[in-house]
């Protein structure tokens, strides 16, 4: 093979080092207008009046886009998977997080666009806001999400909770020598790509739209734009592929649709580049996760069972959170084989920025919780944490929480590499371990029934 294993230079390296790579902000189009957004200053408020008259009348303003201009105002990120939409592209009569867009202005300069945003008259009736997921379940908590209530309630089988049940958790708890529980909470994280959200939309003479996009998910974004605009895909040409960092934060199609609407309404090319402040305030981030783990373990270091409760803080709207939680549930044993499971997970809404992907959606905070917990269990057992991890590490044909047999789990080798890289001496027994299917000492009774057969994906 010429490519696998070879160290090849980046195909875009020369462009990157000579200033020749064209990012969206570098696209030059004659007659381009500049856009700015009016965003909510409140975390939770009713909009009782929205008057764009004065802004639209300002010299140099070419379009003011509000909810009334959007052909399909509510379209869900997971509509394609049958999950109802809950988030309006522009707020209509209610804002549910600070920074939520209400209007977009396209003007000759960005300064005029910002001045016009300031001239839009909005009256709010402020409502109590909810920030702590744990309070979302209280009977007197404010209702955050009109479509779903305070937590997503439309899983398969009419459940309001994502559940995994495997084996017999009660038997595992009864058989345990030790029960170790812990609560882990990770905070929200902004992806902070160096390039903020940016879009250039150009109305073409034949009625089509050309959209220069910073999206990480081209065809997904094409679908989102066309759905909101109610256009066939043949009418929209998206140009992308050069992204100034995304890390998951650019899968949400945050700027393309509104810029396209402003271009349609003004009949001119429009650029919308978010400020760094807007990016921090209003772009989808990695949401916080609240995780409670209870492990049933034996004194010789086997994990018999895990009971887990997860509450995912989705922010104000659903976006991809149900997907994130589902992925989280499939991974809630981490890289370890645990045969008896009882998992409950909730997607809970708060008056915060709607959350989205970031580098291992749904799993990164989970890994932190699982590994910190593993360390604690080993400590309480008085066992070498490497030995504890390596015993329980997934082997070929061990099965995941969603009952897929692992074909080529690499946990054993990863742990051995980690030890080698950090100067930890593993004993002969641990060094000799491999990923091969469990047998002998590595196949205690409790793991027999969970062995599957390869070929799962």
């Amino acid at each position: 093979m010429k490519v696998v294993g070879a160290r090849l230079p980046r195909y875009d390296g020369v462009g990157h080092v000579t200033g020749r790579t064209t990012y969206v902000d570098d696209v030059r189009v004659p007659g381009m207008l500049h856009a700015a957004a009016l965003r909510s200053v409140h975390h939770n408020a009713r909009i009782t009046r929205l008057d764009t008259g004065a802004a639209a009348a300002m010299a140099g303003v070419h379009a003011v886009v509000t909810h009334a201009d959007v052909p399909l105002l509510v379209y869900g990120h997971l509509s394609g998977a049958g999950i109802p939409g809950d988030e309006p592209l522009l707020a209509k009569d209610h804002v549910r997080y600070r920074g939520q867009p209400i209007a977009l202005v396209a003007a000759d300069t960005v300064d005029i666009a910002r001045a016009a945003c300031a001239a839009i008259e909005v009256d709010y009736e402020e409502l109590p806001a909810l920030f702590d997921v744990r309070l979302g379940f209280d009977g007197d908590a404010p209702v955050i999400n009109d479509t779903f209530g305070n937590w997503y309630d439309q899983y398969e089988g009419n459940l309001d909770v994502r559940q995994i049940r495997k084996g017999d958790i009660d038997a595992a708890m009864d058989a345990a020598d030790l029960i170790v529980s812990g609560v882990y909470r990770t905070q929200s994280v902004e992806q902070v790509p160096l390039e903020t959200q940016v879009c250039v939309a150009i109305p073409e003479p034949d009625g089509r739209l050309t959209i220069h996009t910073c999206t990480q998910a081209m065809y997904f974004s094409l679908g989102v734009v066309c759905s909101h605009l109610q256009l066939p895909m043949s009418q929209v040409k998206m140009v992308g592929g050069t992204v100034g960092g995304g890390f998951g934060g650019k899968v949400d199609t945050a700027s393309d649709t509104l810029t396209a609407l402003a271009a349609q309404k003004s009949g001119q090319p429009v650029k919308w580049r978010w400020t760094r402040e807007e990016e921090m305030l209003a772009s989808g981030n990695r949401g916080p996760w609240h995780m409670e783990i209870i492990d049933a373990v034996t004194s010789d270091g086997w994990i018999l069972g895990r009971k887990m409760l997860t509450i995912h803080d989705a922010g104000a709207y659903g976006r991809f959170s149900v997907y994130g939680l589902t992925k989280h549930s499939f991974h809630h044993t981490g890289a370890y084989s645990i045969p008896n499971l009882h998992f409950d997970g909730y997607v809970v809404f708060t008056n915060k920025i709607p959350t989205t992907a970031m580098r291992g959606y749904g799993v990164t905070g989970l890994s932190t919780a699982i590994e910190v917990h593993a360390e604690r269990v080993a400590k309480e057992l008085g066992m070498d944490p490497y030995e504890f991890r390596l015993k329980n590490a997934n082997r070929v044909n061990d099965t995941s929480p969603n009952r897929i047999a692992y074909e080529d789990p690499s946990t054993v080798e990863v742990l051995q590499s980690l030890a080698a890289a950090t100067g930890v001496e593993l004993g002969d027994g641990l060094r000799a371990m491999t990923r091969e299917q469990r047998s002998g000492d590595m196949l205690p009774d409790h793991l027999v029934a969970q062995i599957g057969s390869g070929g799962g994906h």
Partner: protein
Amino acid sequence: MELTVNSVARTVQSPPLSSLLTVLREELDITSPKAGCESGGCGACTVLVDGQPRRSCLTAVCAVDGAEVTTVEGLGTPEDLSRVQQAFIHHYAAQCGFCTDGLIVAATAYVGGGGSADTGDIGEALAGHYCRCTGYVKILEAVAAVARGDTFDTASTASSANNTYVTIAGAES
């Protein structure tokens, strides 16, 4: 106002308090300095003003009237890359590339001023340049290699001698 930008004399029409970044990007169409934050925090807009790295987003154009401004376009071309540019390719120091222009400008000033190959010194010289992609290690390696006087082959990339791998049984085939 008059500027010499990448050795070409330019007359600037923008208002005097416009940022040098806006003048370069919007009036002169020189797009390598990037608007990462427009508040001095990220370094993506860095250019050389009379040979010194400056954050163009915080520099009012009237304050540099008559100065010589160099952006990464003025340091080398695809056919004739500077050593810093070659090093960034060879050492894989540019990933998305959005921070790269500012870093190459700052690194050029550093090695041009006789900066050492010590990664602590380099880190200090480049402090305040954010890169969200690379984790900085490869950027430090690239600049150190230039300071050491290495030569570069841009048709390949440097291998990292420090990587530790465990051979996985059966994976060789």
